[in-house]
């Protein structure tokens, strides 16, 4: 009983400390200091987030810029490889903890893909889709750790009349670099089109856009002497070709939408966290960190899931596909 009382007292004290921290940071922050009209030394203020869309170069190797996002993505790769290397170094029938973790990850994603793509195509989609998911989600979650975006040289920037001090971080959330999202989008696009060509055959795949076979059938009607059917078949054939052109365009637009969906969401998340930290330095940003964790998962799932769905659409023939286009 006394132990419980002690721990509940501890909780109360902790709560009071956190509340005090929240109130202090609110009062000292830009909102509070304006409201109560107090001067706060700039050393105690969190600088206003300075949005820089291109990633900043840390080093130059010849003509090539090594940016902070590139370093982040290397760290992601190294961490993932270390983790899974030790997890799967000695595979046992009765798994240890790390092996169980690796198995849960693989098995969970595998079953999800199986549910969407069917048993026949799982192993085709599994490696690429899983790599996209793990890469994006690890980038997103690593970016929420303390080192990211907060550690680096301070630079003074002047924008018109205002001048501000900005941190140029050594490590920046890798997903906020459009080059990274574009590279994954390209992988996804090439993978999908490659599947279309290789799995259902190049001619059939191209035909699935334009429906040349329907046009051929219309000419067949002409030879049979059915003029009316020929005319309508010809009309539908040209409509199909037009629709096919639009569809090809839509396949290319997927690259853009993939790129900007991830880039936009992640950049917005970074800015949101920056703004919240700027307004109230303590406690208030915590729920937003939770939100960003969720968003990271969600965006990774969306990226991987859309790749999967588009891939499934490419490997199933046009007729089976029905009304799945959008």
């Amino acid at each position, binding site marked *: 009983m006394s132990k419980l009382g002690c721990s509940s007292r501890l909780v109360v004290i902790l709560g009071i400390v956190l509340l005090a921290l929240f109130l202090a940071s609110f009062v000292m922050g830009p909102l509070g200091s304006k409201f109560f009209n107090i001067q706060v030394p700039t050393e105690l203020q969190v600088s206003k987030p300075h949005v820089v*869309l*291109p*990633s900043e170069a840390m080093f130059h190797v010849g*003509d*090539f*810029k090594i*940016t902070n996002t*590139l370093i982040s*993505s*290397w760290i*992601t*790769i190294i961490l*993932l*490889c270390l983790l*899974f*290397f030790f*997890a*799967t170094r000695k*595979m046992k*029938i009765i*798994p240890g903890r790390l*092996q169980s973790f*690796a*198995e849960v*990850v*693989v*098995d969970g994603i*595998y079953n999800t893909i199986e549910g969407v793509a069917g048993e026949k195509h799982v192993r085709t989609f*599994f*490696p*690429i889709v*899983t*790599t996209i998911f*793990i*890469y994006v989600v690890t980038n997103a979650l690593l970016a929420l750790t303390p080192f990211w975006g907060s550690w680096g040289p301070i630079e003074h920037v002047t924008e018109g009349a205002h001048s501000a001090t900005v941190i140029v971080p050594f490590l920046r959330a890798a997903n906020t*670099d*459009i*080059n*990274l999202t*574009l*590279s*994954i989008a*390209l*992988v996804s696009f090439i993978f999908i089109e490659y599947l279309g060509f290789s799995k259902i055959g190049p001619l059939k795949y191209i035909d699935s856009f334009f429906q040349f076979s329907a046009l051929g059938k219309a000419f067949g009607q002409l030879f049979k002497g059915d003029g009316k059917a020929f005319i309508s078949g010809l009309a539908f054939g040209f409509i199909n070709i037009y629709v096919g052109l639009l569809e090809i365009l839509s396949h290319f637009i997927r690259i853009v939408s993939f790129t900007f969906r991830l*880039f936009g969401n992640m950049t917005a998340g970074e800015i949101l966290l920056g703004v919240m930290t700027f307004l109230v330095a303590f406690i208030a940003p915590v729920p937003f960190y939770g939100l960003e964790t969720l968003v990271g998962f969600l965006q990774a799932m969306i990226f991987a899931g859309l790749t999967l769905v588009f891939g499934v659409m490419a490997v199933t023939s046009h007729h089976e596909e029905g009304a799945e286009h959008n």
Partner: protein
Amino acid sequence: MENIGVNWQLVVAFLINFLVLFGLLTAILYKPVLKMLDERAAKIKESLEQAEKIKEQTSRSEEQIKAAVEAARKEGQVIIAQASQIAEKIKEEAKDGARKEADAIVIKARDAIKLERDKSIADLRSEFSNLTILAAEKVIKESLDAPKHRKLINEVLEQSNTFKQN
């Protein structure tokens, strides 16, 4: 495009990053784990099949045992029935034998008695005739008068009595 930082060199760098990660994860994660999962699934399937087989075998052998027990019981009953039949037969035979033996003994005894009697009768007759002859001799030898006659007969009878008692 420059404003948001698209840079083809970086795109290529990230592409290489992705492909490196893809290759490494394939080597150290997907292949071993999927292999292990497949192996485990195969093992579980095998064990289940084996368990099913064993169950089937058990039920089959149980049935066999039941059938064997049933057959043994039937056989036992047959044997018991046979045994009791045999016993009945033996009893009957024994009874018959005893009766026959008894009959034979009785007949033998009766024969023996009859023989004895015949012999005694024959003995008696010869004795009696001897006596009669003796008496007649005496009678003939002496002059016969009534009291003397009586006395003679008594004498003979007494003699025969003494004979009899011997």
